């Protein structure tokens, strides 16, 4: 598990509220979605398209593509390259992206 050194509110940062699989989650403005997932205790964010194994962010710099999630209805989004935004909806991605999703 990961944790924050201090809560966004304690640090005087603006708090951004998103939902992760419908659970409201407070983040720090400037967090990537991947950082928000780790801070929420969720190191796994998807099941692979090949074997269905659990995976999560690995490189945090846009290289490995292991952090793909659904963001605001768009599948295959890199959680580490997307910054949180008020009201954003994040969903775990199960398998491959579906056409039209």
């Amino acid at each position: 598990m990961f944790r924050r050194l201090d809560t966004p509110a304690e640090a005087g940062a603006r708090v951004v509220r998103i939902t992760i699989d419908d659970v409201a989650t407070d983040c720090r403005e400037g967090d990537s979605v991947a950082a928000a997932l780790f801070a929420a205790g969720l190191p796994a964010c998807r099941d692979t398209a090949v074997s269905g194994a659990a995976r999560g962010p690995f490189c945090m710099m846009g290289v490995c593509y292991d952090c793909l999630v659904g963001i605001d209805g768009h599948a295959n989004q890199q959680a580490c390259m997307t910054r949180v935004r008020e009201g954003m909806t994040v969903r775990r991605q199960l398998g491959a992206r579906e056409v039209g999703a």
Partner: protein
Amino acid sequence: MSAGLPATTCELLVIGAGPAGLAAATRAAGLGLDTVLIDEQPAPGGQIYRAIGSTPVRDRAILGADYWHGLGLLEPFQRSGVRHVAGATVWAVNRREDDGFEVAYSIATPGQDARAGLLHCRHVILATGAQERPFPIPGWTLPGVITAGAAQILLKTSAVVPSGTTVLAGGGPLLYLLAWQYLNAGVPIHAILETTPAGQWRRALPFVWGFLRSPYLGKGLKLLRAVRARVPIVTGVSALEALGDARGQLARLRYRAGGRTEELALDQLLLHQGVVPNTNLSRALGLEHVWSERQDCWEPVVDAWGASSVAQVTIAGDGAGIAGAIAAEHRGRVAAVHAAVALGRLDGPARDREAATHRAALARAVRGREFFETLYRAPDAFRRPVGDTIVCRCEEATAEQVRQAARMGCQGPNQMKAFLRCGMGPCQGRFCGLTVTELIADEQGRHPRDVGAYRVRFPIKPVTLGEIASLPQTEASRAAVVRFRK
């Protein structure tokens, strides 16, 4: 479908906003070049100075002086007049018929289709930096296992740190730097597992003279002492394996050390065995590359100015071969004066006078690197895995599958794609390319240099058809697809 982004034109395009890119762009603008800096991240700094202008870790003692050195690059850049295109992923660079390049990039906005844009430039400096060297051990794909670099990015960008039992494993300066930063932040570390083989000190010894005169010595030893005083270090670790629980997440770690097999329960495993140049863009551009014997990786061929094998393409920083952040900024300035000559803004003698200063600083910055490059060379067993260990994370191809195909006569990495699909997932070979080359070399008794690398083509990052369709249309692009019309 979204509309595309407005087209941009410049004399010099710098790709990547780490130390090399920031220094190159700032210097180029200082020489009067119309310069654009394009970068994937929302703010400049690259990975080493990630979030330098916005990190929530305000206590400077935590990340340390070497990190905050990055402010000295950021501030002049912000005053330089360079146009910064942030949050933009370059996915194609094509030579134009008349002169220079056409560059395609995308900018994503959450909840919308990404939009693509075109940029025209006469000269390009690639400052695409480094990525973590692949560390293929059993279980390295389990959630709970991340790279040390990734953990450091979590700290720099969001002040997010591990809790519970945390183990760092591998070798190289970054592993100890991260441990030191965690200790500064009050984050406990259960152990550091060093994979450096015992005999490696002897191999590094011939290079010790340079190290003794290097800026690394004092800082490095101080940092090592601080970490060793507070974290148990296990040396000579081999056969490292991450084991999962019923949910498929990291639960236990097994390794051999001191002739015994050890096992422990843990919450996080942070892996690191050095960094390697990010070569996807330089490969796709068709630049010549060589295999580095000392660093077991590919690097583009460049001359003392950073000029590549292709005209009007210069490379600066770790993307041209790993030499570290301080070297990267000096290499960036050298590349900038070279580009200024190529673009007719500076004459040869003026370039040489200025370059002498940057080169002297560069020589100081790289002094002593041979020593710890040799000392921390990633061990064969951790570069050339066996058995069920996943090699290609995207397509889940294993070491034994790759080895078996190589034994059957698979001719090289490109044919391996046809057999196993390795290198054909979304990461486009970034996390398996080196391993596949080395495994084929291992099985066939060949040198990696002769085995070669994946052929990389544009687009070098996955894009949707919608993004491509959002590109601005020109008369030429329309003519290309309506040729059958009478």
